[in-house]
């Protein structure tokens, strides 16, 4: 990219430290005036080597490590890992544990979408939006804190169940929070629809069509905003999603406005799912009876085999490929995060737009460098 610079062009690095980024990565831009002619993404600033670390830790120790792939959606990462191991062990958690997992993961989805919407507002200059969403997010984090004991990295799921039961009074504390959140989402939607400046910044910006999105490998709200109803919770249901009634939210425009709208609708669906779970949750054990792999068993051997398990992360489709050779540590764990193809799709999306649009586009795609770098 450095060769053949015309007289009007310059190369600028939206470098590793930048107020706009959701994590350190370098974006090399070739600008002509304000228009982007070429772009390139360089990763690797926070590469921790998680896949190599997981090969040297037992399966139980791996739960705390998998938490930290992306600390904002820790429970979904844990679900993917624990689901892989449960498939290898061929056990299934009891119903109450599955309902608890679904409740916590939908709460995680709610707070991740809130933060994503708020950050997007912050990127286009609407700083008050960031403050409002963070304020709402505090209630959700207190709820998760009440169950798991931590606000971000939880280490709550175990093979075959969860670590602890729901505390007494959880339902009474959750329902007012969810009702308040419904009003807040309506407020946000009205704010977005009636704000002329916001619409000028987001409608028609960063348009993805369905074919382009499929060939770029994008998944999650960015794909659903182009009209493709691809949701792992419906395609290959895991846990109790088969018994729950919810719909896949899609829009057709494919621009930044549609992506934010899809997130707001998904938040409403998540609230509905949590309410159903709180109604339908049965009483029962949170670990299978006579299970060898109880929560107090630190050393356990997993039979040899390989498995590929997918879950629906708030940002898209998350998958883990695990190879086991019969010992107490995994042989190979490959983490396929949802943000990796999203970041890869950024250069084709921003070619031809202005510098100001980069902020809007990358904010609406909701990236997280920690997950891409692992």
């Amino acid at each position: 990219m450095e060769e053949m610079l015309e007289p009007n062009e310059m190369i600028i690095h939206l470098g590793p430290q930048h107020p706009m980024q959701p994590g350190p990565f370098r974006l090399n831009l070739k600008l002509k005036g304000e228009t982007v002619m070429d772009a390139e993404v360089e990763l690797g600033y926070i590469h921790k080597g998680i896949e190599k670390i997981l090969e040297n830790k037992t399966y139980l120790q791996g739960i705390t490590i998998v938490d930290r792939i992306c600390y904002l959606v820790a429970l979904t990462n844990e679900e993917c890992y624990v689901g892989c191991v449960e498939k290898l062990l061929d056990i299934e958690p009891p119903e109450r544990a599955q309902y608890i997992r679904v409740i916590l993961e939908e709460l995680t989805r709610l707070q991740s979408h809130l933060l994503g919407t708020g950050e997007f507002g912050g990127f286009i200059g609407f700083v008050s939006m960031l403050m409002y969403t963070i304020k709402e997010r505090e209630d959700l984090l207190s709820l998760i804190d009440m169950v798991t004991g931590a606000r971000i990295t939880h280490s709550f799921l175990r093979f075959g169940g969860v670590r602890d039961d729901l505390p007494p009074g959880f339902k009474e504390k959750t329902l007012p929070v969810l009702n308040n959140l419904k009003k807040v989402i309506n407020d946000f939607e009205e704010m977005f629809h009636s704000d002329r400046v916001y619409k000028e910044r987001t409608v028609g910006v960063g348009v993805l069509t369905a074919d382009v999105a499929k060939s770029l490998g994008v998944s999650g709200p960015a794909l659903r905003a182009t009209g493709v109803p691809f949701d792992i919770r419906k395609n290959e249901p895991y846990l109790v999603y088969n018994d729950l009634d919810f719909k896949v939210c899609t829009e057709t425009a494919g621009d930044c406005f549609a992506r934010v709208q899809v997130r707001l609708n998904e938040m409403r669906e998540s609230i509905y799912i949590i309410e159903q779970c709180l109604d339908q949750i049965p009483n029962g054990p949170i670990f299978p009876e006579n299970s060898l792999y109880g929560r107090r068993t630190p050393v356990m051997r997993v039979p040899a085999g390989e498995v590929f398990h997918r879950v629906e992360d708030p940002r898209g489709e998350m998958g883990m490929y695990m190879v086991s050779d019969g010992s107490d540590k995994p042989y190979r764990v490959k983490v396929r995060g949802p943000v990796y193809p999203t970041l890869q799709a950024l250069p084709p999306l921003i070619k031809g737009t202005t510098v100001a649009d980069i902020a809007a586009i990358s904010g609406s795609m909701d990236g997280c460098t920690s997950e891409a770098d692992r």
Partner: protein
Amino acid sequence: MDVTEILKSLTGTFPEAISEATAKSEIRARAYVDKEKVKEVCQYLKDSLQFDHLCSVCGVDYIKWNELEVVYHIASYNHPVVLTLKARLPRDNPEIESVVPVYWNANWYERETYELYGIKFKNHPNLKPLLLPEDMLGEWPLRKDYEGFPNKTARNLV
């Protein structure tokens, strides 16, 4: 599409390239593919069997059998089957054809596999290290006999 139909159609079209095709469950299937024919198999999957979503490309090091393996997970936006294709490569000179012309998002996956395992992807548009710093090229950290960089203090405990 049923998983048995998919496997039958695949083994029917490529009798020599595909071996050991098994269906693990209703939505998971696995097959070993010859390393010369990977690109054609992927093209056939994308065109005829509606497998238009590449989940990931990764490498596994089987040091006991002196082999490296490249594992492709290919899924679809229309049906829930995920097909796992595995290609065996010799450990001293691992080279395989790149599938970037078929699936655009294989670009970064192959770059990462190259810098972590040393598997060269022929005809890749831009085979440079992605995550590791430039001076770690040649170390192949995720192999089982990796000893540490720059001091050889790491050992694989398994």
